[in-house]
């Protein structure tokens, strides 16, 4: 992959402070809310926009695509066993006669749903646990952080694999299970940030006015950590999609007759050399999905926190 020096990466970052100055002069800054500013900075980044456009296209393809195709993902075409891509089956068919396009799109739906739900759940847990540990301190802090350490030591993959057999028919429980194992490191970061924010004037002011601890966390501390949390949620989307695909690849995640990109790749694994279309299409969709989410996350990081520089 080649890029000329003027391409997006440079654009987004060469002078992080410059956009603010121009925004202040070219329009009335008072009219521009923080959300507006962030949106502006985001839309100035080509790679982030590319990621957003790609993600929207992928979501559209996954949810609308199957409606346009005449084959359903469980339907069997008796005239086409293990055929390569053709005009009838644009992604080809598998050994039983399933349409690979329909299966891929159906699997992608599941992967997208799982990714989004797990990310929101995990980030919410991380925010609440981290902020409570940091704000209340003392024994609350000790017990919560000790629990976080314990969760990091417990081999999550193994626990999810064992328990997922019990939740075979309920994928929402599977979502909660995935979420339960990816919030810990963020919780530690949130705790650290809360510790420093606790000493700031606006928090002290609220405390002296008699505002309760939980209310301070919800109204004053977490909103000030929103950049961190939004970025974290984005990172978690692709982490969850990859984790789900990995577990399903071993038969521990989504169970048949349900399909996800992971189960499709599991089935394609042995046939990858002789009938590569079974492997390339789900794999390509999975990679594009994660790549576009990561690009959005990266652009969001710059838009929300221009002072951090172009680090990630």
């Amino acid at each position, binding site marked *: *992959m*080649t*890029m000329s*020096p003027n*391409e997006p*990466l*440079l654009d987004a970052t*060469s002078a992080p402070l410059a956009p603010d100055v121009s925004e202040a002069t070219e329009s009335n800054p008072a009219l521009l809310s923080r959300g507006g500013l962030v949106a502006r900075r985001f839309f100035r980044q080509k790679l982030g926009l590319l990621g957003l456009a790609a993600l929207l296209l992928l979501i559209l393809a996954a949810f609308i695509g199957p409606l346009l195709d005449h084959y359903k993902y469980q339907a069997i075409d008796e005239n086409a066993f293990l055929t390569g891509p053709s005009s009838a089956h644009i992604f080809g068919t598998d050994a039983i006669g399933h349409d690979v396009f329909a299966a891929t799109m159906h699997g992608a739906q599941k992967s997208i749903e799982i990714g989004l739900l797990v990310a929101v759940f995990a980030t919410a847990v991380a925010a609440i646990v981290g902020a409570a540990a940091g704000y209340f301190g003392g024994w609350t802090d000790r017990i919560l952080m000790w629990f976080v*350490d*314990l969760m*990091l*030591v*417990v*081999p999550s*993959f*193994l*626990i999810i*694999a*064992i*328990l997922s*057999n*019990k939740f075979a028919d309920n994928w929402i429980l599977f979502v909660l299970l995935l979420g339960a194992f990816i919030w810990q*490191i963020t919780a530690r970061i949130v705790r650290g940030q809360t510790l420093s924010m606790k000493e700031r004037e606006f928090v002290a002011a609220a405390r002296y006015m008699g505002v309760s601890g939980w209310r301070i966390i919800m109204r004053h501390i977490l909103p000030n950590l929103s950049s961190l949390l939004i970025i974290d949620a984005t990172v978690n989307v*692709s982490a969850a999609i*990859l984790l789900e*695909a*990995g577990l399903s*690849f*071993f*038969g*521990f995640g989504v169970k048949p007759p349900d399909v996800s990109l992971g189960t499709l*790749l599991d089935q394609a*694994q042995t046939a*990858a*050399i002789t009938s*590569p279309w079974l*492997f390339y299409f789900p*794999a390509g969709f*999975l*990679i*594009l*999905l*994660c*790549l576009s989410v*990561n*690009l959005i996350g*990266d652009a969001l990081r710059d838009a929300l926190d221009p002072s951090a*520089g172009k*680090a*990630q």
Partner: protein
Amino acid sequence: MSRKGRSLAKFMLRRFVNYFVLVFIATSLAYILASVSLDPKSNYTTRAKPPSAEVISEKLDSINANPDTPVLDRYGTWLGDIFHGNLGKEVQGGSVNDDVGRRLWVSGQLLLIGTILGSVVGIAIGAWSAVRQYSWVDHFFTASSFVILAVPTFVLAITTELLATHINQWTGHPQLIEYTGQFDPAINGGFWPHLANRLRHLLLPTITLVIGGAAYISRYQRNSMLDVLGSDYVRTARAKGLRRRAALTRHALRTALIPSITIFVYSFALIFVGATFTEIIFGWHGMGELLVTSIQSNDTNAVAAVTLFVAVLVLLAGMIQDFVIALLDPRVRVGAI
């Protein structure tokens, strides 16, 4: 012992006790969870000619996995054995100790080379990209790592396998690059052909591990190096007349390594799970494979052994990380931060 040494030792002892308790609880939890959820009986009842209930019960008793025995009793027996260095028996009747010993050696070959090479390459690429920020080198590696980080390990492994078959076909040597197992048992000849055969088998899994690891570490290394490059003390080092190379390696790189070490150590368990895919796809019978096969075969003792292994790894990793950071940052030792 100096005062500094004593406070460091005290700090490490405190951390060790903390980690030890965590490992104990984590492993016990996993054992009990596995005992309650897995069904070792199915290994006998699903056979074409299932043995009688008494025989099954007897067999399950001999491996301490009989569901009729209360879980806590089984846990007590298992715990007693663990403190005598005995990990119990597998469902097939073999000793878990022997199996784990064999597998550690297999995984060791793969992980030691793959992980170390991956980290070194990642740190080098990250530091280089940071020094040449916004050059084509930086853009190239940034773009590549972005793509690689979006590729799951098993897709990466299968893709390298596909590429290898193409290369083999193209060069006309069907066995130029091997992608199943650690070596060919039918190989004849002395030491050199044997070594060459092993290296041909090692190539693909190592490439898979190195690419994944390097992409991951290089992003963090680039970040921390960029932070350090802009700091006052690197400028001071240059201002006092140090050559660019010396300032970059002795002052900048050394400091910028700290976050990478932390990340590396924290993701140790992650690397282990990553190697699970690599081992299974390339047919290496290592610890990573045991993680999956033990669950699939409802082998409680093997599951517990893997858990213990991972937990001890995390403990060791955490201890090393604490030690390195305490050496580098005295504030941590005295509990100032």
